[in-house]
């Protein structure tokens, strides 16, 4: 696997997707330019050709992305910027996960029995299936009775 993956050489010109992944197609399909489902898209096909030409001419992906933002506004970007209110888009999922994690930690602590050496507890840390052979034999016998 590693041999196969490491075979990728560095490309001199950035691929078209370095720009087309970052901007939305403006044909109204609602998809990222790369994924526009209209194969003969009146906006997307010329845009991809333009991007390929500009990259070949030495423009950087950042410059081209900026060009589209200047033309169509921030909405042209396929993801919110990491500035201002948009930070909320990026941070909120992690905040929710962390808060949820802390809540679960305290809930699990609260719910855990205070006595850690409760004799009723089985499974001394070994996964449930790795039970000793006498128990397994008993289990087998019982199951055989059911059969």
């Amino acid at each position, binding site marked *: 696997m590693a041999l196969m993956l490491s075979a990728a050489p560095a490309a001199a010109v950035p691929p078209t997707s370095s720009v087309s992944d970052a901007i939305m197609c403006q044909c109204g399909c609602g998809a990222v330019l790369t994924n526009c489902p209209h194969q003969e898209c009146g906006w997307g096909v010329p845009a991809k050709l333009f991007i390929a030409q500009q990259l070949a001419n030495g423009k950087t992906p950042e410059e081209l992305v900026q060009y589209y933002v200047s033309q169509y506004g921030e909405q042209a970007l396929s993801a919110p910027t990491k500035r201002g209110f948009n930070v909320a*888009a990026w941070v909120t999922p992690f905040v929710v996960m962390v808060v949820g994690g802390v809540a679960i930690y305290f809930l699990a602590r609260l719910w855990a029995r205070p006595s850690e050496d409760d004799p009723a507890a089985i499974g001394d840390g070994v996964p449930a299936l790795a039970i000793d052979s006498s128990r397994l034999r008993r289990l087998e016998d019982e199951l055989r009775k059911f059969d």
Partner: protein
Amino acid sequence: MNQVGYTALLLAVLISAYGVVAPVVAARTGQKEWARSAENACYAFAAATVIASVALLYALLTRDFGNEYVASYTSLELTWFYTISAFWAGNAGSMLLWVALLGIYTAIVVYQNRRKNREILPYVTSVLMTVSLFFSLILTTSHGSNPFAMIPGAPPANGAGLNPMLENPGMVFHPVTTYLGYVGFSIPFAFAMGALITKRLGDQWIRTTRRWTIVAWIFLTIGNIVGAWWAYVTLGWGGYWAWDPVENASFLPWLTGTAFLHSVMIQEKKDMLKVWNIVLIIFTFALTIFGTFLTRSGIISSVHSFGQSSLGPFFLGFLGLILILSLNLLFSRLELLRSRNELDSFLSRESSFLLNNLILVGMAFTILWGVLFPIISEAVTGNKVTVGPPFFDQVMTPIGLVLMFVTGVCPLIAWRRATFANLRKNFMYPAAVGVVTAIALVAFGIGDHIYAVISFSLAAFVVASVALEFGRGALVRRDMAGENIVRALGSLTWRNKRRYGGYIVHVGVVLLLIGVTGSYGFKQEQTQTLTEGQSMTVGSYELTYVSMENYNTSEKSVGRATFNVKENGRDLGLAYPVREYYFKKDQPWTRIDRQSTLGRDVYLMLLDYSPETGQVNMEVNINPLVSWLWIGGIVMVIGGIVAIWPDRRDSLRLAARYERQARLDEI
């Protein structure tokens, strides 16, 4: 036949309306005649919707172009195979499919429970018939949703034909399996509501619906995987998942459904999380309706949407009604749902399941947040923003990696109580495998791709932990039963289908994520214009344009290029990317070709060609490991099937357990 179909739908409306009320009367009065009649209504509803479906299929296959739906989605040139898929190519047909599946599912539920769950069943069928009534009403009363609407005047000589992007085997199976999954979640939801109404809030409803939930989950898994495969081989952009709002909508109930499948185990084993399980199934079902709303609301543009439709407000209203009524019912029963909430130990499998639920629900929240953020942003700042794939890729990747870690950790922690010493012992081998994998990957020079290194290492860790579980169990069986190790593995799995089926699903998830990591992290692409005899190079692959063949059929013109593909000078054979032009629809279409191995796909797209000069504009992608995504999907489904395979011993064990529990309760 159109009249027959429409009449059957009208009857379905009446029957479902009766089916909503009759079971409640039966339950309140205790009269057996009402109960029998209500159950017969469910069978009659199923029959009516099946008759309507057969009528539509007949109209499609006989090319009855007087039927507006048939004229819109078929043509004389369409093969019978894709004519069948035209059934669900449009809004009306897909709604009929939904209703018919719900009718069949409901009939099966009634039959299965003819001698059990008698107290809860009337409310279950009433809930299912309410959903059926909603969909039947839409089919018969909403403009554009009647599959039997006729064209005024003389029928056209030929139909418009199917959209070429739907002419793919994936599109025959993707909608059906997705709907089988969506509709399947109605059953556990209805049982949950029945349990709340009747105040039978033990785990009976969970045990009764466990197989239904897994069946729904399996179908939704198949639906999502086949949908991804269809996008990959049809849409021609070299990928399979675009975080399209509708893709997200079908992923959401899968995530919450997966969380539900895990958390019900805690209720079964510890009598805990009762409220949480009901919340999960309410939202899972609501999310299936949300997905249907998205495709029909017209509020989003998507390859999945059925265009402009006036159904949005109806679905939104129905969704609101579901949430208000079910959550209200849940709140009214909170006192009865109070659990003992007692864990034997903080460090236990139960605790790890809480973490697993947090991550799965957190992923669902993240997706929903991404879908809703543009609306929130515009409301708060007045700025319109787009939340597309880069957002989901960046936010979901770390969360997904944590989920993968937890997938490996869970089987290593004992139920009820684990100690750090044993945990260390159980972790040792899988962790070592993970670390060795990471070191090997860095040594092979892919250390720059940090997420890929983490992902592949975690994959190795999870596979090792599952292998350890299988290995330990098989060794015990070998010693006990005197079986050879292969047979011991088989009988171990067969005797504990639920547990080991689940582990097989975990392996499937890992294989799928290996495919995702490889194809996302190491994709290479190149676009180039070529004349005959010229070559292009992408990574270690050289593709030589050999020739172009042009021909016409009655419905399209076809340009078929021939490419010779070599890898490091070694001949891999010929590939034939195709460019078509559909006369009637005035639509060009690309049919990709690919050379697929377990290591990578060479993916060829003929973007354009000139019949005069023979020049072609080609895009070639090298997608490493993408085959593992499909293999992972298949393994997940196999694991799911193993987990639900009927087992007499399981039933007897459960029966004995509940009998014991009942005796204890009496004491």
